[in-house]
């Protein structure tokens, strides 16, 4: 496995800026805890004992490295480029989320914090946080919008089994963004003993950089695995983007290879033209939310608007600031895929390769299928299969009129 090295790159700058994006847009009460976190993070990412323990956990607890799989039959049917899948769905808890929660929970322990809080939308990050909290014997409170609780019952039960307290958020749109607001409020109130595990590459500095660094194990592994398996690096990378943590995890170690094309896939929901989507990079504007400047879904007055996607994990009105920067700088391309297109890819991978992907990851698969058809069979696309689809059985069945 690739070891976690000193990977704090040139961006963000020391105040958390990726060009005009990122930064520290929080109330004064949070400045001291964020600075404490930043210092601790910088310190422990150079601490040999911390890094060794993290790497051990990634191997023996998460199950890394995750394999890379050549989806040969699907590639043949698409008749274009070869599609390879980075199997983050095979991690413990079934998605890439745990790469980050293992890292942050370990940091919490090294910092002497006894209580963990987290926000969750679909429940995947909540489950991954409750999992590591259980293992380290830390108290865990997960904030989740009341609407999401209703549509993700199984994950709520899972978190409770793991010993976490799930608190329903009844304010605003009662979804992920409101859960994040509520977790921030908890943190402001309990900063002395509490560590806030943010699940994606958004939020105030140092979260976007820290979560990226924990997730970039994905791309570091892929670099050596691709050489072993295919004899070379891919021509294109594809990953879905909600907040953007699985995408940045794959992209980051490849940013300095300009010949490798990068595609981030947002949720177009019912279609970008309908307004019912969750695609701030494709159809939003820059603004400030949740501690950072980035692309947002907002109305003409600057109020954050509700988003729509069949995939709860992509249903977020903002996006990590590094993606905003990669978009503006032209290094990465951001595209969007509708609910229907994602569902079609969900069924294709399931039937053709025997892998049931998460609906989030299905967005990446749908775009990869489209892209593959425009490329030659000698070319390679590497898709981040960020999670498994077991959690989505009810959503898919309901969409097709089936009661489970």
């Amino acid at each position, binding site marked *: 496995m690739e070891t976690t090295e000193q990977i704090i790159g040139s961006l963000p700058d020391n*105040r958390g800026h990726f060009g005009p994006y990122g*930064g*520290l*847009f*929080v*109330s*004064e*009460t*949070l*400045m*001291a*805890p964020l600075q404490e976190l930043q210092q601790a993070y910088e310190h422990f990412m150079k601490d040999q004992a911390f890094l060794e323990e993290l790497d051990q956990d990634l191997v023996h607890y998460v199950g890394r490295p995750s394999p890379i799989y050549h989806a040969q039959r699907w590639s043949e049917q698409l008749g274009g480029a070869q599609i390879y899948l980075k199997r983050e769905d095979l991690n413990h808890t079934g998605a890439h989320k745990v790469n980050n929660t293992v890292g942050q929970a370990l940091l919490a322990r090294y910092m002497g914090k006894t209580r963990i809080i987290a926000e969750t939308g679909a429940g995947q990050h909540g489950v991954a946080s409750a999992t590591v909290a259980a293992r380290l014997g830390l108290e865990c409170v997960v904030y989740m919008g009341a609407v999401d609780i209703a549509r993700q019952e199984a994950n709520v039960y899972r978190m409770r089994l793991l010993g976490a307290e799930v608190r329903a958020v009844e*304010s*605003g749109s009662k979804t992920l*963004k*409101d859960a994040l*607001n509520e977790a*921030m*409020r908890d943190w*402001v*109130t*309990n*900063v*002395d003993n509490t560590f806030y595990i943010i699940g994606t590459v958004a939020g105030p500095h140092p979260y976007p950089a820290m979560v990226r660094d924990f997730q970039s194990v994905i791309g570091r592994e892929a670099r050596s695995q691709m050489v072993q398996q295919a004899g070379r690096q891919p021509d294109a990378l594809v990953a879905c983007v909600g907040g953007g943590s699985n995408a940045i995890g794959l992209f980051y170690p490849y940013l300095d290879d300009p010949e490798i094309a990068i595609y981030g896939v947002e949720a177009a929901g019912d279609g970008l033209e309908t307004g019912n989507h969750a695609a701030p990079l494709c159809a939003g*504007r*820059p*603004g*400030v*939310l*949740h*501690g950072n*400047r980035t692309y*947002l879904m*907002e109305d*003409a*007055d*600057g*109020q*954050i*608007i509700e988003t729509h996607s069949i995939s709860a994990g992509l249903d977020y009105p903002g996006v990590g600031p590094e993606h905003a920067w990669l978009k503006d700088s032209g290094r990465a391309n951001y595209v969007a895929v509708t609910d229907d297109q994602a569902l079609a890819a969900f069924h294709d991978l399931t039937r053709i390769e025997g892998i049931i992907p998460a609906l989030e990851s299905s967005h990446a698969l749908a775009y990869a299928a489209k892209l593959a058809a425009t490329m030659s069979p000698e070319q390679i696309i590497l898709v981040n299969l960020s999670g498994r689809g077991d959690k989505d059985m009810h959503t898919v069945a309901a969409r097709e009129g089936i009661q489970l």
Partner: protein
Amino acid sequence: MSRIARKFSQLRAEGRKALIPFITAGDPIPEITVDLMHDLVSAGADLIELGVPFSDPMADGPVIQRASERALEYHVSLRDVLEMVAQFRQLDTDTPVLLMGYLNPIEVMGYEQFADKAAEAGVDGILVVDIPPEEGGDLQRLLQAKAIDQIYLVAPTSTTERIQRICDLAGGFVYYVSIKGVTGASHLDLHSLDEKLDEIRAVTELPVGVGFGIKDAETAAAVSRLADAVVVGSALVSRVEALAEAPEKIGASLREVISSMRLAMDRAE
């Protein structure tokens, strides 16, 4: 001298402390906000803090968040709030008005346009909750050019170094957040408040206001013995909420709270 500085020096000369009520613009209906501002002044308010509704008020507690939600049902925008201030100014040219809110609506309007329009409307100070001094430079330069004070928060968690830095940048007054937590939370500790105010006063001549957690006349009086200004928000907004279906009764209810606080504060001197 700005309207805020003038007000504080006038109060200082009279040996009184400033009472600063907070209400959210447009809550529960936009039509009554300007009247409520006048009501607050007539009951003894010295400055008015007017909240700009935002969909994601991260630093506020549930009471003030619900106030934003009520106002947003009427789509009360930053532009509307500025119009309310302009309307208030037609009858009151003396009472300073501060806008309190979050950065995104200002980003969307554009900093320059916002500074122009705020000055035109008669706004005296701006408190943007989610803009610490590190990120506030561009906005502050534009506001300064229009003689609008940018008010910064100091928190219980602020280090001595940060307090110094914030006070160097702050205009109008320094707003001390008296508790670790969101607006409307409890547990105001007068002893640690006193210590922190000493620390702030050691580095600035600016008046120091205290807010978050001041629920009643007794607490207002106790805080006014220590600070130059007392900010009251959630205690008022709770009343607005309770009377949301009978908006014609809100003015009298808020006047009652403010008069009792005014009385208690003036007796405390």
